[in-house]
């Protein structure tokens, strides 16, 4: 249990970042574009650390979730806007999680028409009847699966000089697929839900500003760990799939990247990892969504409430499970594309949420002397403007 006393919000949020959308996006980044996007990953590691730290600081100072703070500062109309933005992004990500579940079972030859309804029901059952915290811990342990990518990354004997160089050498292609994948890469690493989640987490844990230094260190460490994993997923696929020119069309293709390590078992290993990562996301996201919305609008929430007392809370969770599951069940859907595109939605909507966060954290009446330093503001605004610029470029590029 020592493990859990050390890890906190930063590492959990970072770990949950590598969900279904994460694995597939990083795999596609490496398989389709080789090392060309590593510099983006390098930059967004700092952006991730800075934005998550901002979430932690707001939570520690105000002891309120982001939804509640937005309501108190911006009033009801802006809150509605922020909540709809978050809801769309989150429904997209949950759809990716169920697409991940479907893909992982399809590797084993089980059709999504069986796996998705069963897992959706399971998620609901555990959230409603069981223990959210315990389940979260179990899946967190399983998510140590990512270690295989790191080991694999050494076994394939990549050219580390070349890879490290790619981290700092910007390459850009002015094509829609490149920009689309790049926005997904940003949107899967820094997420709207992540901002809400980390803030609620520090509030729930009963932490306050005295824990700031420890939490800051932990958040930075979390950002580093998650992007080290991302780095290895990208080079694993870059030095296997990109070299042989394999285009990822389904989960089986992505699994091939693990072949040097696991041989025949690579399919099983990848399927298991994808399943676990998807389930972790499928638990956390509907819950985080319902918490934020209920807090903002003043409805009763929390798992210690009964259905009768918190209908809207449970209603949101149920809706956030059912709609994405149904979407995934549409016949003939390209699951990998769904996972990638959902992360694009996240990336495109992220600036909106980040602007809210920036407005809050620079408000002296809320944050006192804990407002942002200049450096934090610069990094955050560059992230916001960078994503907006990339989005505009993508739209332009897809027309010409």
């Amino acid at each position, binding site marked *: 249990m020592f493990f859990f006393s050390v890890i906190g919000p930063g590492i959990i949020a970072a770990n949950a970042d590598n969900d279904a959308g994460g694995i597939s996006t990083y795999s596609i980044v490496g398989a389709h574009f080789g090392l060309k996007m590593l510099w983006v990953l390098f930059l967004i590691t700092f952006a991730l650390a800075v934005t998550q730290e901002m979430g932690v600081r707001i939570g520690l100072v105000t002891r309120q979730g982001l939804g509640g703070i937005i309501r108190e500062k911006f009033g009801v109309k802006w809150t509605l806007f922020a909540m709809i933005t978050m809801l769309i992004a989150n429904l997209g990500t949950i759809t990716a999680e169920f697409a991940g579940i479907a893909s992982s079972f399809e590797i084993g030859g089980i059709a999504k028409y069986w796996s998705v309804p069963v897992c959706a029901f399971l998620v609901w059952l555990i959230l409603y009847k069981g223990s959210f915290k315990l389940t979260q811990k179990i899946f967190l342990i399983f998510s140590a699966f990512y270690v295989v990518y790191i080991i694999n990354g050494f076994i394939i004997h990549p050219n580390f000089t070349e890879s490290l160089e790619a981290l700092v050498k910007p390459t850009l292609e002015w094509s829609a697929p490149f920009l689309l994948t790049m926005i997904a890469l940003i949107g899967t690493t820094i997420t709207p839900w992540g901002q809400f989640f980390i803030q609620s987490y520090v509030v729930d844990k*009963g932490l306050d500003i005295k824990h700031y230094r420890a939490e800051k260190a932990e958040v930075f460490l979390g950002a580093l760990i998650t992007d080290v994993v991302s780095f290895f997923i990208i080079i694993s696929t870059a030095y296997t799939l990109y070299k042989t020119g394999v285009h990822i069309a389904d989960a089986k293709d992505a699994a091939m990247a693990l072949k040097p390590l696991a041989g025949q078992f690579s399919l099983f290993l990848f399927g298991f990892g994808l399943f676990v990562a998807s389930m972790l996301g499928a638990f956390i996201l509907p819950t985080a969504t319902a918490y934020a919305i209920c807090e903002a609008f003043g409805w009763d929430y929390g798992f210690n409430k009964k259905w009768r007392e918190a209908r809207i809370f449970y209603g949101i969770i149920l809706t956030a499970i059912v709609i994405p599951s149904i979407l995934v069940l549409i016949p003939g859907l390209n699951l990998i594309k769904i996972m990638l595109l959902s992360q694009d939605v996240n990336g495109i909507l992220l600036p909106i949420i980040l602007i809210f966060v920036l407005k809050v954290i620079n408000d002296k009446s809320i944050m006192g002397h804990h407002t942002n330093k200049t450096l934090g503001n610069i990094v955050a605004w560059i992230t916001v403007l960078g994503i907006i610029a990339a989005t505009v470029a993508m739209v332009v590029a897809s027309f010409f």
Partner: protein
Amino acid sequence: MFYFSNLFNKKVHDKADKIVGRLVDVAVESDDTKEYPQIVGVLIRGLKGVEYFVDAKEVSNWSRSGVFLRCVLNPKMEIIPKEDNLLFLQKHIVDKQIVDLSGIKVVRVNDLHFEMVQGKMSLIAIDVSTSGLLRRLGFNKLSTSFFKPHLLEWRDVHVVGDQLQFDINKDDLVKLHPADIANLLEKLNLKQGGRLLDSLDEVTAAKVLEEVQPEIQKVLVQHLGTERAMDIIDKMSTDELVDLMQLLPGRESRQILESLPVSRDVKRVKKILEYDEDEAGGLMSTEYLTVAPEMTVAEAIERIKKYSHQHRSIFFIYVLDDYGHYLGIVSLRRLIIADPHVLVSELMKRIKGVPGVKPHDNLTTVANVMTKYNLLSVAVLDDSDHMLGVVTIDDVMRCLIPNA
């Protein structure tokens, strides 16, 4: 009658029916004794962005199409009065969290309801419903056709905004069960929670603090600071105090222990602190009633009457010899139905029938002993059967089901 959303951001017309700006806030008197505070004035943002404060007397008509004034705006009105006895509703009430005493929960203010009382426009109630939310968003049709407004009368409401005094309706709050107040407190932010705790008398505050979740208990005490927290902590029962000390970092708990008044048996607290939280020694309380075996029933009952106010509940009375050795127990029921002249020693269940537990026994062992011998509380004994304390069923349950 009208709602705040009907007024907010509406155009303001002056005496000459010229549009002079928009209404941005409404101020009511912040007089705690008033059931329905009157509107004192309105804040108007002029066309050039300057804010004016206009006395409510100058308002000739409040309507959904706008606010009509009896006067014209003048530079004198640019002086916004101090907030000492005014409450600006948009700034401090709307969208903020409040405690709903009737429903015992924390809710958000979606809208405000005004009505004429004795010829003066006054604040009557707070709307916390989804209907109010939709009205604010401008979906008026939807707001009235599917949902009903849920109005809380202003006087039933305990406002916890940071700028406000807390003692509005304190008496109503005290009537609630401490566990309910604790649940409310857990939903508030730290500042508000601290304020809520501060507004209660020390005894109630101590009871509330005992019921609050450990993590929040810890930050609340740290937030209040040792000095202010001391008054409350001092009123807590010993075993709850020990639990709290175990949560706090060493330096802080030492500081608190040192500043506890002499009347408090600090030695006992320190002793309990030596044990782990989930073993008998850590769970136990040192508050229990004892009698001597040679006492009569009448004497024993007299003793209970004298000391019972110090204890939350009394299930068993513990029989000790002159040296503090545990001999057995006698239940309250046996004492009450027995002949007053009988000696306690004739009535009591002896140690063989009701064994104690050792301080290092774990929770499971304690629970087993209690279940096997049907005990609501069990004695904790050292190796020579000296009585150290009791573990009650409450302590065990709290350890088994921590989040209730």
